């Protein structure tokens, strides 16, 4: 990192890989990772709901693990790999929907199960659930509910999100077996 000064505040050159692409920006040390993604890189898919780590709307994957981007500084994310909602559609098991968007199994399942209403909290759920299913490919309904219990949603009452998690596990398995067939 090279540092410059803007007024009285030192600027740090931060380079992070976001959704597989290297991005650099010169920012003050206090720039939250959430703001860095949204305002410096203009990747606005990650949303900010509370800025104290409770709501989970800003959850992104840092080296594959869900973390609150409002509780990290961009300078600390230096050299880490970040995945945001914009990058989920590039997963190997993503497929292009009839409307043209590439969606991973979790995104697809949320669309099928009405797992979102206003959509503001949704990116945090999608990143959280994507990582969760990588480790727990076949959750029960109770486990699915537990898995999403660190994210707040004010619209859905969560029932269709639980359903979406279960459906995503199915789609993931379907797509995995399709891929296996193609390869064999």
């Amino acid at each position, binding site marked *: 990192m090279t540092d410059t000064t803007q007024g009285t505040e030192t600027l740090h050159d931060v380079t992070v890989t976001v959704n597989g692409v290297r991005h650099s920006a010169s920012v003050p040390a206090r720039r939250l990772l959430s703001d860095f993604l949204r305002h410096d890189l203009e990747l606005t898919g990650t949303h900010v709901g509370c800025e104290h780590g409770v709501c989970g709307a800003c*959850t992104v994957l*840092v080296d594959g693990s869900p973390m609150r981007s409002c*509780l990290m500084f961009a*300078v*600390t994310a230096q050299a880490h790999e970040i995945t945001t909602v914009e990058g989920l559609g590039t997963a190997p098991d993503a497929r292009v929907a009839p409307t043209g968007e590439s969606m991973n199994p979790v995104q697809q399942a949320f669309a099928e199960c009405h797992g979102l209403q206003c959509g503001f909290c949704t990116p945090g759920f999608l990143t959280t659930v994507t990582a969760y299913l990588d480790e727990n490919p076949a959750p029960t309904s109770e486990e699915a509910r*537990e898995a999403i219990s*660190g994210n707040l949603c004010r619209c859905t009452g969560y029932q269709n999100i639980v359903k979406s998690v279960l459906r995503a596990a199915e789609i993931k398995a379907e797509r995995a077996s399709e891929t296996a067939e193609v390869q064999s």
Partner: protein
Amino acid sequence: MKPAPFEHHAPLTVEQAVSVLSEVGHEGKVLAGGQSLIPILNMRLASPAHLVDINRVAGLDSVEVTPEAVRVGALVRHAGLERSEEAFAALPLLRQALVNVAHPAIRNRGTTVGSIAHADAAGEMPAILALTDGVVEVAGPSGSREIEWPDFFLGALETSLAAEELAVAVRFGRFPVGTGTAFTEAARRHGDYAMAGVGVAVTVTDGVVSAARASFVSVTDVPSVLDLGPALGGVEPGTAAWDEAVEDAAEAVREHVDPEGDIHASADYRRMLVTELTRRVLPQAADRAGATA
């Protein structure tokens, strides 16, 4: 809700970190996981002039299991410790407690040592350090030192760590063979700070309890351990005498704790709650003691 400006320091070694901390003194704060610190910064409830970001310091991210202890480096995330099978085998209490720490996304970032250094009496891990008779390993300008847990926690959010010192690791003590542990807490919502919580360790030798202790969350101003030996010692779990002994232990807990009320629950309610949680958690620990004996 944006943090005030600060100067960011990114030491690569413990020595560098200590050196920066010595320079900045009380103007500085250590940033590890930041899951307690950054909300406070975002709300501008604190605005330290310097943040010493230890995330790039080498050698602080390992969990080591020795016959006496589980040693946890300052950059070990809660989730890393929670998932460590070695640590679980050595000290199941760690996982039993860690799953109650906030939510997975917080545990993926927050560090166990950091939450101990934060010394919030509503935090789980300070209580676990106490219950395991743990030690904090500290590096300072004049070398390293170790602080036994009773000397570490001075008050709410207050420790004996000097401004120029860095907690580099903690050691959770292991229990003797035949010990079962259990942890439980009651929170308003899943993942919230507990209204009350209790962890217990019960050692069973030759079929009867030879040692038992408890520590608490949210009902004492600093972590504390209560020896339940007087209530449970010599009693065989599962007998009628055990039920009475558990009642005595719960009564001892009721007298020991000193909770404060807040908007979520009164002091009396918390006292009742921790007493009841003790009743519920002791049989679990005793069962596990039986299973390991």
